[in-house]
């Protein structure tokens, strides 16, 4: 008798909880599920200039086109390369900065505020600044290298596939490292100091305590930072659009730039939707693989 009563109270609580969740779920469906579903639906149609911008059912034809589209796979590779390099660099640098900012020193708050500035500025503006820094005639980058005697004549940074990629990576690392360092700093501050003290009493070096205490306890923040940055870097648009526009010769064209061109310049809406879906699915696959690897690593370290 009492048991059933408890159950009904519990059930009632649960039901109330569900009711309270409905608005949130509705918003999620509206802003996430609907656009994704709509993109998927649109990707099954030809809607382009050849069809007078009217949707004509085409089945999986658009996906067939993607398989044979060298430009898509090139831009996919360019994006992947850009993402992996920037995220790794930002993680290493961000970790270093976070460790420094975690130390007690005079004016720490001022330094912390300054360190977040690049992240707070609008990307398009920063990209314009970097474009001038890497300008082949008047750029500071060339000027410094020339004065140091490292090069004899100015490098046309944004005009060569390799140097343009380097320039983009430098600009992005400069801009988003602060974000990672702030995230990691928050994690660092939640690690109790007595852990280090106890470990030091046992005779551990600084490197050992970083490797044995800081890194494992910081793992959740690191994973969040990686996931955040991974998703963001993969969708990068503004920085590349302003700095190189995808050039020279498509060498820095990222996926979002190609999708934008397909929709807005070529007016090939069905095909661009299909590219969105493919990129989306490939991203999910990458994230799933990452999570599986991480959880395996974790269960192994626990044993």
């Amino acid at each position: 008798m009492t048991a059933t009563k408890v159950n009904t109270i519990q059930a009632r609580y649960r039901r109330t909880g569900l009711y309270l969740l409905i608005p949130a779920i509705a918003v999620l469906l509206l802003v996430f599920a609907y656009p994704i579903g709509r993109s998927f639906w649109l990707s099954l149609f030809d809607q382009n200039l050849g069809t007078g911008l009217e949707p004509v059912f085409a089945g999986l034809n658009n996906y067939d086109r993607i398989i044979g589209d060298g430009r898509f796979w090139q831009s996919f590779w360019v994006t992947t390369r850009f993402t992996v390099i920037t995220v790794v660099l930002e993680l290493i640098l961000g970790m270093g900065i976070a460790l420094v900012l975690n130390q007690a020193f005079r004016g720490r708050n001022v330094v912390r505020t300054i360190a977040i500035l690049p992240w707070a500025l609008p990307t398009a503006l920063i990209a314009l600044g970097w474009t001038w820094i890497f300008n082949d005639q008047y750029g500071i980058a060339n000027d410094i290298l020339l004065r140091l005697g490292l090069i004899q004549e100015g490098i046309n940074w944004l005009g060569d596939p390799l140097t343009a990629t380097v320039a983009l990576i430098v600009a992005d690392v400069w801009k988003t490292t602060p974000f990672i360092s702030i995230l990691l700093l928050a994690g660092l501050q939640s690690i109790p100091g007595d852990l280090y003290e106890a470990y030091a009493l046992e005779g551990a070096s600084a490197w050992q305590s970083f490797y044995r205490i800081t890194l494992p306890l910081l793992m959740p923040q690191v994973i969040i930072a990686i996931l955040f940055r991974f998703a963001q870097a993969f969708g990068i648009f503004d920085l590349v659009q302003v700095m190189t526009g995808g050039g020279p010769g498509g060498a820095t064209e990222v996926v979002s730039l190609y999708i934008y061109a397909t929709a807005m310049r070529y007016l090939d809406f069905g095909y661009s939707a299909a590219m969105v879906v493919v990129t989306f699915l490939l991203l999910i696959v990458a994230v799933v693989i990452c999570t599986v690897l991480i959880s395996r690593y974790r269960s192994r370290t626990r044993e």
Partner: protein
Amino acid sequence: MKLLFFLKRILTKYWLRSRLFYRLTLLILFVISAALVIVPVLSQPVTLRLLMTAPDVPPWNRVMVKAFEAQNPGIRLQIVEGPNATNLIEDLYTSAFLLGDSPYDLINMDVIWTPKFAAAGWLVDLTDEFSQEELSVFSAPDVEGGKYQDRLYRLPIRSDAGMLYYRRDLLEQAGYQPPKTFEELVKISKDLQEKGLVRWGYLWQGRQYEGAAAMFVEVLKGFGAFWVNPDTLEVGLDQPAAIQAVKFLQSTIQEGISPPGVTTYMEEDTRRIFQSGEAAFLRSWPYVWPLANAEGSPIQGKVGIMPMIGAEGNTGGSCLGGWGLGISKTTKHPKEALKAIRFLTSQAPQKEFVLEAGYVPSRKSLFTDPVIVAKYSYYPQFFQVVQKAVLRPPIAQYAQASDILQRYLSAALTNQMTAEQAMQNAARETRLLLEAGRTRRG
């Protein structure tokens, strides 16, 4: 006196209190207040807007807008300044139309935008507005460039065509006639280079951009090949003649006739080298002529021009460029817009415009007009070039097809792919692209 008093009494007692009076007063007041709003709106001049690259705007305002507004007091022509890059102007027009309510009534269109804008249904069909006689005064390829699937959407206002510049003095010195084929051009170039008369033979634009597509259209024509047949949507890029065309361009670099940097050059890079006297031949647009012959130019008066040549046994063809006016489908003033197009493309304003800005006209008679020839002696020669101009394929998905070609052409020219590989890939991707648009046509 009594009568007046009587009338007044009737007015106050019956008339002023009557319903009729009440209603009449209301009606009169309503009409007056409405007129106060409507009359100023009606008498306000209609404003026609169009968007253009900023450097084009001052000559337009000085000549076209002034002349038009003087003759049409009720219509104002407002030219909006856009960024100085035509692809950005195209993007701005595109987003304006995609959003539905375009702020532009007239569209100043590059020849390659016309099929896209027409296929998207953003342009007013002008076919029935202009008779054959009216169109026959324009140079024929320019009119053709304003058509999409046999309907007219654009009236030409300015011509442009690729041409071959050569150093008359050097050719005379070595005893040559201007070349008639690519083979002769190669032979003359080599000879002039061996004699030490000039450093480079032939300059063309090989960077990955629209200019390279325009240049390649001429070489394709010169080898009797084609890119896309607009009627059947057949792709000809992987046919032997097209591969020959790529190999010809590759050979000019390999044999040292063209500088290796030609694969990164745009128009201005090639003009600077040519103008400094370092090359015998140059493929470019009409704008080079006044600059090459300007005061202080090292090659002033030493340059000749001719239409683009072809390979042995083929006639060459120049690539058509140029601008024209169309009407936006969302305009609220189609009649006024049509009036504006008629006026702006008519003889007198265009003549004044050509004299002021140095553009190449679209009306045939202006090429030989005495006043214009007195100022620009070379225009009759331009006429020959424009008459032999070939269009880039007028297909709706031109921008996409051009990007595919540019990528693979660039890959072949920079030796990342063989000519065969590059053209087969380009052809395959172009076919996939056109296939996706063919569904509706059935």
